């Protein structure tokens, strides 16, 4: 049933085979086995119902949800996190400074976080909701404006409805941790690396051969009825379970920065322009601040990071205003983008109503970049293993769905665990976990695929595709029901 033991055994053998001849390998394997069994008699693993590896947004909301639901509050749960969580607990930035790692939270994610009592713990003065999106094609200028329409048929889709909430990831993890500390009952092992995961052993009265046993750096051993991998893109839990994750690198980097804008808009809007190198997005933060996510080639990302603040700001302003030809030229300059922009702007017509306010400041040290990837695990479950968040999938950030998908996974997995507990099922048995995959896999796959196709569609600079995609955007813009559909997807209500 479970491929994990044979795979880990094969892996172990293969690693050894690189160095030692076969007969020695066998001897070593024998020695290893006897070593393991003596160590286990010395220190048998502590038994847990849920061991969650990874204390990011997905892992923390899983624990907060399990502890806040009556049905699952009796489970014995543990968290393993390699970072020191006291840094998360004491996270604080002065007013007017924002972390460059921000995410757009959909109303669906916020509703879930409210339900588990975590949203209430966030610093709301640092969260910015927005009601409008402006998305346009950098090559043709075809535009689509997303804003909730006045209800025409009493469906309740009124004006002023929130599309999403911009929030610093650290604000979320801090709030989740505060909620977990308030609820109590979680054994937290932070600042601890997972040394290894192996299957348990059989003793006189207990057979843990299907139970993953996690070993920590300090020698502690924990047997998990259900081991949850919330441990990111290179998930050790996924590797242990022998689940492949497939995909590709986009050969793009996401450049992020915290920006100060010229004047505070009274209507908060998210802006995204599709450039041939990738989408550039400016998302509203409280006050006159905004956060930048600019997906571009690794070379251009390196260039952006090397510019002086004043030239960096000029290039960001140009990215929302100038033609792609002008922009490409400005990328080639060593410096002096600021003068170039002043001159070129005079000759480029653009609608001031539809571009973000001018950037007049960039927070020191906030310009950073990360590589963009597409990954999807073959499945999210194995015997006594479940994957959530980035361990299961990595998405292009163009729709701001990555963190929300993780929250959706957690909500679904917790619903699954509650059902198992109330029906006497073993929460770790693969059979009990089946409904979790059935619920999430296709939904995530569609969203991953749509974002991937958008990226590819807008990477094309010329030819018939460019005309067609503009036609598509204009048609969508003209059709309110279609637009509302896209907005519902963005708001996490359609999935």
């Amino acid at each position, binding site marked *: 049933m479970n491929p994990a033991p044979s795979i880990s055994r094969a892996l172990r053998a293969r690693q050894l085979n690189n160095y030692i001849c076969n007969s020695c390998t066998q001897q070593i394997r024998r020695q290893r086995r006897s070593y393991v069994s003596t160590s286990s008699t010395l220190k048998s693993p502590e038994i847990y119902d849920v061991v969650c590896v990874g204390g990011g947004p997905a892992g923390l909301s899983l624990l907060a949800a399990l502890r806040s639901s009556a049905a699952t509050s*009796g489970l014995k749960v543990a968290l393993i996190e390699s970072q020191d969580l006291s840094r998360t607990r004491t996270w604080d930035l002065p007013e007017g400074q924002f972390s460059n790692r921000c995410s757009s939270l959909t109303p669906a994610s916020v509703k879930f976080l409210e339900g588990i009592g975590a949203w209430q713990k966030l610093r709301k003065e640092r969260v910015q909701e927005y009601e409008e999106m402006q998305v346009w094609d950098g090559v043709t200028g075809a535009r689509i404006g997303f804003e909730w329409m006045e209800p025409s048929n009493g469906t309740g889709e009124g004006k002023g409805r929130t599309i999403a909430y911009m929030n610093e990831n650290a604000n979320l993890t801090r709030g989740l941790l505060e909620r977990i500390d308030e609820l109590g009952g979680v054994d937290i092992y932070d600042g601890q690396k997972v040394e290894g995961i192996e299957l348990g052993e059989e003793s006189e009265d*207990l057979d843990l051969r299907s139970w993953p046993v996690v070993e920590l750096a300090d020698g502690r051993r924990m047997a998990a009825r259900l081991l949850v991998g919330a441990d990111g893109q290179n998930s050790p839990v996924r590797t242990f379970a022998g689940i492949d994750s497939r995909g590709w690198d986009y050969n793009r980097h996401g450049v992020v920065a915290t920006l100060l804008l010229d004047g505070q808009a009274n209507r908060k809007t998210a802006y995204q322009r599709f450039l041939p190198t990738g989408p550039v997005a400016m998302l509203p933060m409280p006050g006159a601040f905004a956060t930048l996510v600019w997906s571009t080639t690794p070379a251009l990302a390196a260039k952006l990071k090397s510019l002086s603040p004043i030239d960096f700001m000029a290039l960001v302003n140009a990215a929302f205003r100038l033609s792609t030809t002008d922009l490409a030229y400005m990328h080639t300059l060593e410096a002096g983008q600021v003068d170039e922009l002043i001159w070129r702007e005079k000759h480029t017509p653009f609608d001031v109503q539809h571009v973000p306010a001018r950037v007049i400041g960039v927070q020191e040290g906030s310009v950073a970049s990360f590589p963009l990837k597409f990954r999807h695990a073959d499945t999210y479950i194995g015997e006594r293993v479940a994957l959530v968040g980035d361990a299961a999938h990595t998405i292009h950030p163009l729709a701001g769905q990555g963190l929300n998908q993780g929250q959706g996974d957690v909500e679904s997995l917790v619903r699954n665990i509650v059902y198992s507990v109330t029906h*006497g099922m073993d929460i770790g048995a*693969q059979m009990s976990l089946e409904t979790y995959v059935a619920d999430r896999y296709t939904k995530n796959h569609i969203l991953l695929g749509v974002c991937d196709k958008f990226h590819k569609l807008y990477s094309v600079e010329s030819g018939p595709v460019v005309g067609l995609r503009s036609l598509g955007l204009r048609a969508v813009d003209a059709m309110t029901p279609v637009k509302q559909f896209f907005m519902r997807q963005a708001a996490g209500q359609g999935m």
Partner: protein
Amino acid sequence: MASPLRPTSIRNLNLLLRSAPRFVQNQFRAHSTSTSSVNPTEVSHFNALASTWWDPHGSSRLLHLMNPLRHDFIKTCHASQPDPAPSANLRFLDIGCGGGIFAESAARLPSTGSVTAIDPSPEVLAVAKAHAKKDPLLGGKLSYQNTSIEGLPLPKSADDQYDVLSLFEVIEHITHPANFLDACTPFVKPGGWIVMSTMARTWTSWLTTKVVAEDIIGIVPKGTHDWEKYINQEELREYFLKQRGWNSPQVMGVVYVPGLGWQKVPRSEKLGNYFFGIRKDVV
């Protein structure tokens, strides 16, 4: 889920039609003089299936999928009582426990005090015991015995009796169900319940459980069911109410829908799979 049609199924259909439903008399009219409810052919059939009992894609998959509904049905029965059902230390007796699908799940519930689970097949019971060892939660609460109901010592007091006596997918494998139920009665506490699931003896159940499930799709191992032993819920109702000492019969029809799993369908108890529960009088 769906496996491809097997090429032999058309040939088998011909054979099967010869055994199609004729008039079959109510099983309850036949009483026997033998001392055990257990049919040796049935025991050897399930011995052969033992190894695949806990395989999530094996022959017992449908039973695994049905198991949560058994708990829902017990909750429905308890909710129907005028007095509140006990919320802690419930005692279960699971007869014909097989690999322990229901017995394990009952033992895991926090409201359960103990589960005694019995089965006449030693191979199946060995699988059940080996599987229960995998869960440290079950150790103190679940005990297996290789016996039939006739082999179990009669309770001496109400403390030895059980709050829930369960017969899931059992009664259709018993040759003389009336004798068998007579033997079960003394084990139920006053105010306790007998809960069971089985299949109605109808043309539909013959078509779905014999022709489709066993012969065409092969989702259920061949020879698992003997349609002539199926019992209709009216027959069960009649048996218990005639015995006296029983009240509030409950029934819930369920249908397996590929892709959706088991669904509760009102009045489907007349077609195929159904749950039946009845409460022993308090005094």
